[in-house]
């Protein structure tokens, strides 16, 4: 079998922040009752991470648990392990009303890094990117300009942004445009 190919072939741009397409990232959508002990046990057992609370993003490397909605979780797993992880979850939750599906190829994932991070993000999404409003480890599902997107911060200068695969090129151009080195804002970062 061929190797997976990212939508933009690992594109990168250096400006106010460094923008880099990363992946492939295994992703599994789980829809179900996120308060059910069986569901919590199955996903935390698989990921080795705490169950995230409302809007939480608990991640470690390429493993993670992202709270997407009151009944939807996005599990991050190493790309090659996604099919097996789906099988393992499905078996663990046999008899539960859940939907578990491998969506590892459905999105594009970008890493943004730099001190200007919060100001750059605030050019595209109607979100309060102040540290107290969006601390590291909290996920925002929002829009970046004209497309749906999700974003969470790993730390104060590193963010991950995902969007659907088909608009990867648009997202990369957007991020590169607003990270123009001559467009510093000085709002979140003075």
């Amino acid at each position, binding site marked *: *079998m*061929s190797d*997976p*190919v*990212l*939508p933009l072939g690992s594109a990168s741009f250096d400006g106010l922040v460094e923008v880099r397409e990363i992946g*492939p990232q295994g992703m599994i*959508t789980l*829809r*179900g009752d996120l308060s059910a002990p069986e569901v919590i046990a199955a996903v935390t057992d698989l990921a080795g991470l705490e169950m995230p609370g409302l809007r939480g993003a608990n991640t470690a490397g390429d493993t993670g648990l992202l709270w997407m909605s009151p*009944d939807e979780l996005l599990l991050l797993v190493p790309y090659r392990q996604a099919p097996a992880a789906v099988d393992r979850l499905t078996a663990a939750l046999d008899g539960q*009303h*859940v*939907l578990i*599906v*491998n*969506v*590892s*190829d*459905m*999105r594009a994932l970008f890493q943004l890094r730099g001190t200007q991070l919060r*100001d750059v993000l*605030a*050019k*595209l*999404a*109607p*979100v*309060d*990117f*102040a540290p107290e*409003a969006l601390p590291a480890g909290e996920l925002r599902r929002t829009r970046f*300009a*004209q*497309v749906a997107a999700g974003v969470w911060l790993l730390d104060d200068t590193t963010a991950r942004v995902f969007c*659907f*695969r*088909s*608009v*990867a*090129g*648009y997202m990369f*151009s*957007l991020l590169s*445009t*607003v990270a*123009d*080195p*001559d*467009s*510093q*804002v*000085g*709002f979140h970062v*003075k």
Partner: protein
Amino acid sequence: MSIRLATGGRLIDRNSTVKFTFNGKSMTGADGDTLASALLANDQMLVGRSFKYHRPRGIVASGAEEPNALVNLGQGAHHEPNQRATTTELFPNLIATSQNHWPSLEYDIGALNGFFARYLTAGFYYKTFMQPRAFWKHVYEPFIRQSAGLGKAPDPETRDPDIYEHFYAFVDVLVVGGGVAGLQAARAAGESGAKVLVLEQTAFWGGRAPVDGGEIDGLSPDDWIKKTVQALEAMPNVTLRTRNMGAGVYDHGYVLGYERLTDHLANTRGPRHRLWRIRARQVIAATGAIERPISFAGNDVPGVMLASAARDYLINFGIAVGRKTVVVTNNDDAYRTAIALKKAGQDVPVVIDAREFGGGALMQEAKALGIRVETGRAIAKVKGGKRVTGVALCAMAGGGAMVEEIACDAVAMSGGWSPVVHLWSHCGGKLTWDDEQSFFRPDSSKAPTGADGQAFVVCAGAADGHMHLRYVLQDADLKGKGVAVSLGCDRPQTTLPTAPDSVETPLMPVWLMPANAWDDLRMKAWLDFQNDVKVSDVQLAAREGYESVEHTKRYTTLGMATDQGKLSNINGLATLAASLGEDIPNVGTTTFRPPYTPISMGAIAGEARGEIFQPLRKTPLHDWHEANGAHWEPVGHWRRPYCFLRDGEDVEQAVHREVLATRNSLGLLDASTLGKIIVKGPDAGRFLDMLYTNMMSTLKPGKCRYGLMCSENGFLSDDGVVARIDEDTFLCHTTTGGADRIHAHMEEWLQTEWWDWQVYTANVTEQYAQVAVVGPNARKLLEKLGGMDVGKETLPFMGWVDGTLAGFPVRVYRISFSGELSYEIAVPAHLGRAFWDKVLEAGAEWDATPYGTEALHIMRAEKGFIMIGDETDGTIIPQDLGLHWAISKKKDDYLGKRAQARSHMTDPERWQLVGLETLDGSVLPDGAYAVAPGNNANGQRNTQGRVTSTYHSPTLGKGIAMGLVRHGPDRMDEVITFIGDDGETEHKARIVNPVFFDPEGEKQNV
């Protein structure tokens, strides 16, 4: 004449000169100048021609309220019309030209209009150009457009070369205005710990205070401002932005800030403008006040200027607007201008004070300086054409009988001040008339309210009607603290800045000067400089029955120019009130609408231009298509290949080649864009039975079924193939454009109506690249790729199976939209391109031919398959399309069932789907209507059908079409007439079965 004095000018650097051109003439200004101050430094009093009468016009104001000094700025792609010289900061090699004249500013043939001004009154165009009706469009309007209007529109072939962006900011307190009121309010709010953002539209802090003078906490205003800005800069919770105008206040504390980043620079990098999209919990509008002109004859002659502006030019830029400046006023404040000019060594021949007993301390100070003061007097008229040469003095009480002519080259006028209440009013704040000070001020009991019903805007300082420094600061401090407390912060402990008390004599309202000015004077007394509206026009409107200020505005165009009447509105409505014999508050104001001053289109568009104007959705195979001659078709935000052009082919040839290659051997289609939605749960079957018109719950795992979805109104909304994955799980294919919409439709029903059903959905459209392998050799290709059994028995028509092909993990659906033996193969998107390459390579021996959407459409039409969006348009029910077979009779209910039983839906007169063939094999025009005998009530020909899809079929070698025809299925073989696009040409077509090709389905069932 206006000149730069040897000293003075707090905002300019005299040692740094800046060269620029005006109407091609080289001029020199100083660093820190505005274009307006630089023009005045070069004695350029005449800066433009008026809108209607082409009167010579000069600079009137010094800020955003300027009506006259509008210029074309820049050249070529950078050309921008209607830029205010007063808010344009000078930069090296700036190029400006004046507007609205021909052939030149000095000699304008349009000025002839001025001679006919007596006839060009309010409503002139409405009254004169009514008849004959056809003349408006072809004669009058082109002529009027040529002679009226302001700036030159940019060349349509140029493209704005600059970049723009948006910025989303969330704050507790937004302070609009960086004058002393704004700074003090920001400080008070900032001390509470609230997150504060301060926007100032100009490049510097402090507003008018340094010009108007006084003392704050024992400091000069300049020093106090510097100290306060430093204190604010040191506060981590406060952000200060200059060149950033609060443009509009909207619901829920949404405010737009218009930041001009590079307009003041010659060489620019980065974004030109940034549109701040701010959410503020509280807004403090510290927007100051604007001085009003006085309506006297000739108040528009170049050299007549607001008294405050004359003072600004003197103190900020070291410019005397005249060597001999007459000051005319109805209040004390204008004496400051006289005093400042006198102290700067300029001649002030007289201060004309309309008040019978004149003013207070400031008047005494002026007199002590030796300035002549005439009280109870007025200007009868200003002498001069392209610049002021003198004024005729008269009694204020009379009609304008001249008592003395006084030579001068400038007039500084002050009719009082009006608080800038725009931002207060944008979102519904009401105003109250302050009789003592003669202006509208915010009515704090009727503030703009947010979602919680509480006020979210307060005005501070002059914007709230406090006109003296001491009270401005007191009010600002109070408002800043009040806002902090309303946000739940502790009351800040800042100390109130002190300023000496000052007592001024109240102004006398002067809406016309002299009070009973004769007709010929009123016809030269301007209210709206930019739109050329005079006192006589508003009076005429009142006589003609216009009582509402909103109607008068539109009839006379008062306040409708690019300045939105910042100088003219109050004078205009006071004039209207006087004409109607009403009190001013009873007449009211027109509506204040955002933006405060015009903002650029580029700022509104933000980053959305060029490549990222709109998102472009790309399938995993997009790059291959692009490299292999794809002729693109937009489908939603996707680009899909319409066809693939090979050397020397035109589009039609390519499409026909693709159809024939597929029918005869093997075609390949990128079907990745089709929607794929997983529906899972114990109630999934029951849910799909409600969504689709046919029965889905009886589908067996491993099988596929075509289904129709309708809206609750019964209209056909989407179609596609459903595959049952297992007992609890279905995969629903939707149309390309329907994927997101149908997913949302499913979620809506699940979340609002059937919330207790156990069903989850997931839109996995983009997880897969999907390749359709179509044609008689399709199975051979799959067998060659190898890895799974795709034989007729194991994978029959309308079956699906998981497996591997050439090592790729795949799901293969045996479904057909072409009538051929056909497989749709889903592979993970990251592997899509590699799989496609493999298929192409393996298929070469059968001439595997990638085909586009047009070949897809033709092949489905040959088979009589409907297409959502062609055969349907939101008014079509499945029964119209002969799809009764896909509508379950057994089900109790499905979305649309009830609607489809209504009388109009079951009407046998509804047009029905049929096939159509022209008698000569030609192609029917798309969308053409079939005519019926007679005319309808509107005198139009009756119709009995229309074409919904029409193609040349390369397979059959003739035109084929589908259409909706009244009683169509009962009229087989009848010939009806369609009318072409020109409304005349007749096309005869025979009604036939819509399945043109392989009606028995033998090809797909092999």
